[in-house]
């Protein structure tokens, strides 16, 4: 729509910048280029609240002078801008510390195919159809139950992007990505009781996203909590809903970064090969998961993405690595370099699609096995309530009381507390269906935990 960026030849810019960097005194250089189109629709009361549609393009440059690394980024491609980018980035490298582990990726062709990460329809679908999807996130919730009366945040967003990575060691790779996602955050009102429900989903294909299902799920979550009663304190079986469990996985992702491990910032340092979870638990980082929102042929520096078993039958098997941590740890990169802000951010170690492998138990099996328990459907502010040193946590939660294997009434105003690793060791059953959260990058089935402390109101 905005003209300009669509005409830029990424490969040509890449070559040009690598060449300029060399002339400016860089020993090695790496160029990451990105061009994207996004549409975001915020909805309120079946009307547009805000519509944002834009195209953007930018360049992230890393250069090595000796073993010193510099990073620079810019959003313009004219010769003056590129020249300034290269000069600034070379100056950055000149000021950075020597670090023998700094390195770029060598050329290695990705082998995975059938990744299902680009759907032309996300680009070509008419704007009206996208706006309609936003409306559906809200209308489906309100149609489900008359008590759904308010919405805090209804948003449909999609984007297509072209990413390219070139470096002076011969890496040259270009690929396309697409994604769409819906978020519905609804509130149910009944007398003086007000409860909210949040649901989200994401897909790499236009048809893979079901906005009606998201709206209905948000509504069900809110309605189920209406009229909640107090819960008495004690130790209980806890059935952790997949979505609530996903927040723990988001925290866990930080602990398995090889960068945090090598710098002694993670409590998992030195724990490779030890049992950190119940034998029921297998956790994978799968950068080539077909249709995964974190899937790509190569990572942010051009290393082929792959599948890595992090925890296998409860035993910690691996950390996620990028080129830097691999060289420092004398191992191979697991293809886990990520740029959190796209071209604006230098690559760091990050998970791709991180998920707990599904088990065989259905929700009904788990309720039956649990007998008397609490089903936790929502937790609030895990990062505020978990101790990064020990994994001890205490967080506000809400859910449904389970008696004799049956769901009874909603419960609220309680904290669940325990220790992340004690909790992982107490996983008795793993559900058969994965819920994805965190824009589709974290997946967890329901987890039945044999005991957690409950602090009632």
């Amino acid at each position, binding site marked *: *729509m905005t003209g*300009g960026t669509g005409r830029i030849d990424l490969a040509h810019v890449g070559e040009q910048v690598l060449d300029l960097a060399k002339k400016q005194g860089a020993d090695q250089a790496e160029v990451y280029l990105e061009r994207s189109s996004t549409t975001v629709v915020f909805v309120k009361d079946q009307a547009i609240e805000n519509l944002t549609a834009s195209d953007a393009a930018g360049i992230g440059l890393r250069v090595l002078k000796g073993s010193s690394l510099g990073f620079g980024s*810019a959003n313009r491609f004219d010769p003056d801008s590129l020249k300034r980018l290269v000069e600034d980035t070379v100056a950055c490298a000149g000021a950075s510390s020597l*670090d023998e582990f700094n390195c770029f990726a060598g050329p290695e062709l990705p082998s995975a195919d059938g990744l299902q990460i680009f759907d032309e329809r996300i680009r070509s679908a008419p704007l009206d159809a996208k706006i309609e999807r936003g409306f559906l996130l809200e209308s489906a919730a309100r149609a489900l139950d008359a008590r759904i009366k308010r919405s805090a945040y209804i948003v449909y967003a999609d984007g297509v992007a072209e990413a390219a990575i070139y470096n002076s060691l011969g890496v040259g790779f270009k690929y396309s990505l697409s994604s769409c996602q819906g978020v519905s955050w609804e509130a149910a009102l009944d007398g003086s009781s007000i409860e909210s429900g949040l649901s989200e989903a994401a897909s790499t294909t236009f048809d893979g996203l079901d906005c009606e299902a998201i709206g209905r799920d948000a509504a069900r979550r809110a309605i189920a909590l209406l009229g909640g009663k107090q819960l008495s304190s004690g130790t209980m079986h806890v059935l952790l809903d997949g979505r609530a469990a996903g927040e723990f996985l988001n925290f866990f992702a930080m602990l398995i970064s090889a960068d945090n491990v090598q710098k002694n910032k993670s409590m998992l340092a030195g724990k490779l090969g030890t049992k950190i979870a119940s034998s029921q638990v297998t956790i994978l980082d799968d950068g080539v998961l077909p249709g995964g929102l974190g899937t790509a042929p190569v990572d942010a520096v051009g290393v082929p993405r792959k599948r890595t078993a992090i925890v296998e039958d409860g035993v910690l098997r691996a950390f996620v690595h990028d080129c830097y941590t691999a060289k420092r740890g004398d191992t191979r990169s697991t293809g886990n370099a990520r740029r959190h802000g796209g071209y604006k951010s230098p690559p760091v170690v990050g998970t791709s699609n991180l998920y707990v492998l599904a088990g065989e138990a259905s929700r009904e099996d788990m309720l039956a096995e649990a007998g008397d328990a609490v089903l936790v459907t929502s937790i609030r502010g895990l990062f505020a309530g978990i101790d990064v040193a020990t994994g001890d946590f205490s967080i506000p939660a809400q859910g449904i009381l389970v008696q004799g294997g049956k769901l009874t009434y909603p419960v609220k105003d309680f904290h669940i507390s325990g220790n992340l690793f004690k909790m992982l060791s107490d996983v008795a059953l793993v559900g058969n269906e994965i819920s994805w959260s965190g824009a589709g990058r974290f997946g967890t089935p329901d987890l039945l935990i044999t005991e957690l402390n409950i602090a009632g109101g």
Partner: protein
Amino acid sequence: MCIMSKYLLDPDFGFERIKRLMVAGAQWCEILVEDVASWRLLCDDQKTNVESASRLGVSVYAVASGKSFHTCCDGTSAESIDGITDAVCASLRREGGKGGSTTSISPHEVSAEPVQETIEPFDGVELSRKLDAVTEADSAAREAHPKVHQVTVVYADRVRRAEILTSEGRIVQEDRSMVDFGVRAFLRVNGDILSAGHSFGALSGFESLKQNGRRPADVGKEAARKAALLIDAKPSPEGQMPVVFAPGTPGVLFHEACGHSFEADFIQKGSSFAGKMGKQVASDLITLVDNGHVWGMSGSFVFDDEGNASQRTVLIENGILTNHMYDMRTALIDGVQSTGNGRCESYEHPPIPRMTNTYVENGSDNPDAILTGTKNGIYIKTIARGGNVDVLSGNFVVGVGEGYVIENGRLGAALKNATISGNGPDVLMNIDAVGNDLNIYADSGRCGKGQSVPVSSGVPTLRVRKMVVGGGR
């Protein structure tokens, strides 16, 4: 190119596009041009990496019938700006905005009192001095305690020139220069890794790193001191109890408990404080203010991202709800003036109602008497690990950084990993003492609401009679 010496964008060119947007049906619209240059130094594991970034872009934003339309482009080429103007015009026509006035616009430059001075502009500071700053902080943190085994230091400066043209004919230019400096210290004790951070953020030049408490060594030492407190820290008592908040960052309580719920978009969606204007929503000891015009604060600015001057907005006066925080879209819906709270992360995002520097005005209680008058409970000196709120139900949670148990009116053991949580409307009514020692902390904190913007908060010493404390084990 349409760059001129004084302007990022030729006003004649810009207002011509603004007219097109008004003809297409905008009630109000703006063109924002943003030119940002930033430098970031990250010292991790005693190695420093340097990064630079440069961004120039334009956004076109229009409001009609409660709806808003936004798009943006990189750079300032006439072709790109025409492209994004046409896109917004098309949306306006399709969505049938009936604003549509073709009356002439009289361009005029608008100015207001500054909120900062810049004695040492960042672009004149040698990179080596920035390097020295992070190295000094790293060394200070390591020397402050023998068990410190890892330190992370982040220095970031950012110079932003913004130019805004609005459909009222306003031409606004603002140069903002800001710095964030933070240190996190890691200690290893009996196999556990304990860590704590300290940071500040300010509108200033490089000179603020020479001020007392903001010197790199001061920040490094403070981070190590906070981390070392955790060695002998005890699990927090749990359950309902009195909580005393120290002056400064504990003001985040109000950011989460009610601040977001007072943002006009959430009020219009039925937040937990909707429909309560003019009614008592807090203890009568509470006067809560959002003020984007506090000198040097990271949440301050002269003009918001819609070209409206920042202002002091009284949200709660002696317990009575008196105002909300508005951007242009929500102000037009309610038929009121914007309060200057329309903020965006960058030209790539639309402006929405956001807090700035949010704080409770001084009360009359003696701070020491508040503490000694509290038999048992907890004392919160700083907030850490953030917080979050469900604006519809009002339920929120905030993580405690440096905190202590209160025993018989005195501070006891340091606490580890405590949280406070509750329901915003309930907590506000339960405040029973407000001191006279207000401190607004120039925070490096960012508030996330789909977009990230710098904010600060503050309180005088104050006490909530009872709220839920968690985190014990």
